[in-house]
């Protein structure tokens, strides 16, 4: 087994075995520690995936559009066209590292504080299982395997929301019930998406006779009818996960009710499964369907940006506001994909990563605020900078990064998406670009409103009790995200550089 194959296997096996180990260790703190070590090891392995030969830069006729740096191809269930086929390239690698990083931070955070509701080791074990599912989705190069990993995430995430959620607000049983209802909504909505994915996958497999994504990318001679059907099914499936307006309504509830670590994973990487799937699977496998549906996708994406921003302007709850902001931000990502240009896809990829970093940080901070003050209501929060200046400062940093200030990570995804839409040209796409830019302005408006409400003014009674300091664990968990938001903002080539060649290859087959 070559080193690359070993890495691919290990990056899934380590958290999987780790989850079992964590669940089996009876002592809670020791188990959480083991979980954190496992997550750290996974991050190391994920980062190592970038080593090795990735010298190719240009696309040439006759070579497949997906050329992974490493791949591992083992038979599993020939009767179902299922192979254990993994690979990593410039499109998936940043997301893989982001997933591993956020899981590590969440596990580390859990070492310090376990949300009430269940044992800490069970939470860590579930986080690791979720990590396996997400990493597997990003690494899968077999359509059926992709679907399988897509499904793996569902129930553990349900359990995290239902078991540990809703308790940040003291409110007894009703808060629990709300968490359970939100979790159920999440599970059913997401399953709705994934069964469509299942049907879409087999529409493609039945027509093409293979489930190999490398062979399928570029259309693989699928008829126009098949491609349209496949794109509709796959697109809907990923639109639920991303989420795309109007299929987003599971998201605010799930985010609001989930425990902090759940929200971070959910917003940081779980949503990316949808956008990644859209790029790699839906657009890659059914390019003709993608071209056909692009205007609809673009219009919905811009609607999502506007609706998300407007809803945020009227939100009164901190976590809910951040959750809805995800709808708007993912709208930019989807707009980028809808343009089907190299710039647009690049925008989507960097937007994905930036949103993962920034929104992960925002949810950590919102969780910290809620834990300290016991409330998430904007009406009861004010003057945080008077009592907890560091927390307020970090919140301001994250909010400004999120609104897309140039020099911070959030800027590139939004700007490039608008640029890509303008580049496509024509009245329709120009209008979309203008509306999206307007949405960007609204984003700034609601995030500044959030800051004004929470950090400025006189300290409210709830805020008045807050101690000024930050725990070491909190700083440790947040610092990497702050640094990444800066690093990607200043040097977007960190993401764009690795994704350049595979995106160029993908765009080539889209034509």
């Amino acid at each position, binding site marked *: 087994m070559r080193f690359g194959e070993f890495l691919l296997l290990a990056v899934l096996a380590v958290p999987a075995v780790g989850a079992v180990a964590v669940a089996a260790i009876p002592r809670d703190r020791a188990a959480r520690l083991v979980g954190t070590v496992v997550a750290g090891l996974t991050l190391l392995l994920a980062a190592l995936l970038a080593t090795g030969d990735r010298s190719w830069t240009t696309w040439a006729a006759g070579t497949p559009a997906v050329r992974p740096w490493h791949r591992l191809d083992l038979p599993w*269930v020939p009767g*179902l066209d299922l192979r254990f086929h993994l690979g990593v390239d410039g499109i998936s690698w940043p997301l893989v590292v982001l997933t591993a990083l956020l899981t590590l931070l969440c596990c580390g955070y859990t070492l310090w504080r376990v949300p009430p509701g269940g044992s800490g080791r069970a939470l860590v074990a579930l986080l690791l299982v979720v990590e396996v599912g997400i990493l597997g989705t990003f690494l899968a190069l077999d359509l059926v395997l992709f679907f*399988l990993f897509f*499904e793996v995430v569902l129930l553990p995430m349900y359990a995290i929301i239902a078991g540990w959620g809703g308790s940040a607000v003291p409110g007894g049983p009703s808060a629990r019930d709300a968490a359970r209802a939100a979790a159920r909504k999440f599970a059913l909505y997401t399953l709705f998406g994934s*069964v469509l994915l299942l*049907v879409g996958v087999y529409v493609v497999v039945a027509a093409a006779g293979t489930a190999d994504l490398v062979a399928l990318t570029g259309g693989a001679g699928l008829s126009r009818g098949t491609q349209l059907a496949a794109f509709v099914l796959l697109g809907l499936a990923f639109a639920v996960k991303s989420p795309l307006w109007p299929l987003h309504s599971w998201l605010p509830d799930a985010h609001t009710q989930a425990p902090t670590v759940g929200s971070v994973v959910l917003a940081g990487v779980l949503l990316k499964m949808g956008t990644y799937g859209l790029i790699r699977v839906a657009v890659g496998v059914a390019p003709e369907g993608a071209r056909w549906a692009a205007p609809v996708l673009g219009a919905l994406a811009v609607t999502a940006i506007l609706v998300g921003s407007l809803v945020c302007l009227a939100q009164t709850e901190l976590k809910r506001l951040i959750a809805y902001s995800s709808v708007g931000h993912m709208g930019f990502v989807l707009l980028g994909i809808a343009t089907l240009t190299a710039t647009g896809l690049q925008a989507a990829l960097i937007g994905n990563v930036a949103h993962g970093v920034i929104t992960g940080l925002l949810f950590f901070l919102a969780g910290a605020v809620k834990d300290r003050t016991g409330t998430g209501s904007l009406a009861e929060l004010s003057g945080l900078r008077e009592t907890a200046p560091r927390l307020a400062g970090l919140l301001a940093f994250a909010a400004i990064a999120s609104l897309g200030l140039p020099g911070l990570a959030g800027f590139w995804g939004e700007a490039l998406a608008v640029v890509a839409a303008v580049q496509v040209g024509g009245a329709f796409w120009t209008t979309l670009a203008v509306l999206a830019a307007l949405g960007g302005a609204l984003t700034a408006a609601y995030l500044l409103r959030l800051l004004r409400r929470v950090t400025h003014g006189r300290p409210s009674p709830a805020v008045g009790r807050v101690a000024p300091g930050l725990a070491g664990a909190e700083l440790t968990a947040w610092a990497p995200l702050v640094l990444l938001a800066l690093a990607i903002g200043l040097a977007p080539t960190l993401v764009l550089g690795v994704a350049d060649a595979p995106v160029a290859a993908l765009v080539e087959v889209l034509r």
Partner: protein
Amino acid sequence: MTGSLVQSIDHVALLPAYLAAGTAVLVLLADVLVGRGRVTLVVAALGAAGTAVGAAVVGAGPTRRTFCVGTDCSYVLGDRAALVAVVFALLALGVLGLSGPLLRAGAAPVGEYAFLLACSMTGGVVLGAAGDLITLIVALETLTLPIYVLVGLRRGSLASAEAAVTFFVVSVVATTLTLLGAALLYAVTGGLHLDRLGALFAERPDLLDLPLASAAVTLVVLGLAFKVAAVPFHAWAPATYDGASVPVAAYLSTASKFGGVVALLAVVQHALPATVTGPVLALLAVLTMTVGNLVALRQRRTVRLLAWSSVAQAGYILAPLGALALAAGRAEEARTAAYAAAVAYAVFFVVLELGAFAAVVALRPAGADGGTIADLRGAARRRPWVAAAFGLALVGLAGLPPGLAGLFAKVTVVRSLLAGEAGWLALVVALNAVVGLAYYLRVVATLYAPDPAPATAAAPAGAPGQVGAAVAGGPVVGAGARTVLVVLAVATVVAVVVGLAPQLVLDLAAPR
């Protein structure tokens, strides 16, 4: 049968049937001569295990035929027939294990119970090998007839008597329909052997223009649809399941249902033209899964919920069969894939269903009925392993990881539907899976919910509240309960193994 007066009989082919029938006789003798419940049960269990081994050994060899007239044989023991026989024998063994607490509690007479179960197993073992309609119907009746009595065998339970009568009446009507259909088929074609019928319909498509032929085919299919509890012939199932003791309900929802599927499959695959059966079955499949799932959403009693969910599951099994005839000129490959998908789904399903019922038996006091879902509240804290196994089975039935067996079952069905160009049916199956998750998730969430009645939570752990006492049934002791746990463990292990290596089941289900 005319022709030669002396038939040569292949006794090796009949070995599984001999073993099963011999088990029934031995159980009867043991009950009469020894008269100790434990001995009777051991004999029955050994007999069932022997039948499974015998069927597997015979099935490993080449296909054996016997009772032949010319090229038409009434008894064909091939790969799939052997698989069916093994599954039935193992199901009987499993249900016997589940019945431990029930029989120890004296809720049913041991000898009769074991004898009837063995008789029923005999029918199932023969069923898969049936080569003509009469053998098929007789085998199916041998499978179901003892169950009428088993359902009514709960001492002092009015509900079980009602359930038995409901089941009996409905089932007899169904059998009559099938028989009538078979008779009409004979009138039209002059044949009863499944392969002969298939060949006849293939040679002379004009036969189908006769209204009588369509009526006959429809009657046979509808009669068998009763056995799998397909909507709109399902109304008996929930009442019967709920009235029967839980192990018998387990047998009903696994063995009896599997029997119906096998019979339907034999008729559809070999004998009847898919152009007539296809639309009927497609409609039945859609109705069955949709109605089953929607009604299951509203159930408050555990066994009723499982009953309705198994109605829905029958719909998923029927779907590939229904898709067959929807597009004309179907490739032979797609057809065999569809049959294999139905068999594979049925096998995945019975494993998971047996696991779920075993967990219900384990979580309930000895001899009790299934209780309400609320009774299961907090079971995960008291019996973490049993609850985990139950959760795995339910999640599998919902078709999600970590219940990979159920996931692959759904994948198999959807794949065969799309390979057969029945995309709309695949979408219906897929959307039904979402509805299914809603109620399976409710049960799983109840298992893992915190204990009820916070007032009693302060009390020592050994003194659960009113509701809790009904569930926990105290720390379970005794040999009866142990066999239940063994069955549960085996079913769970099998579910995990076929979940990781579904190709095992797919290979067995696909005819070579």
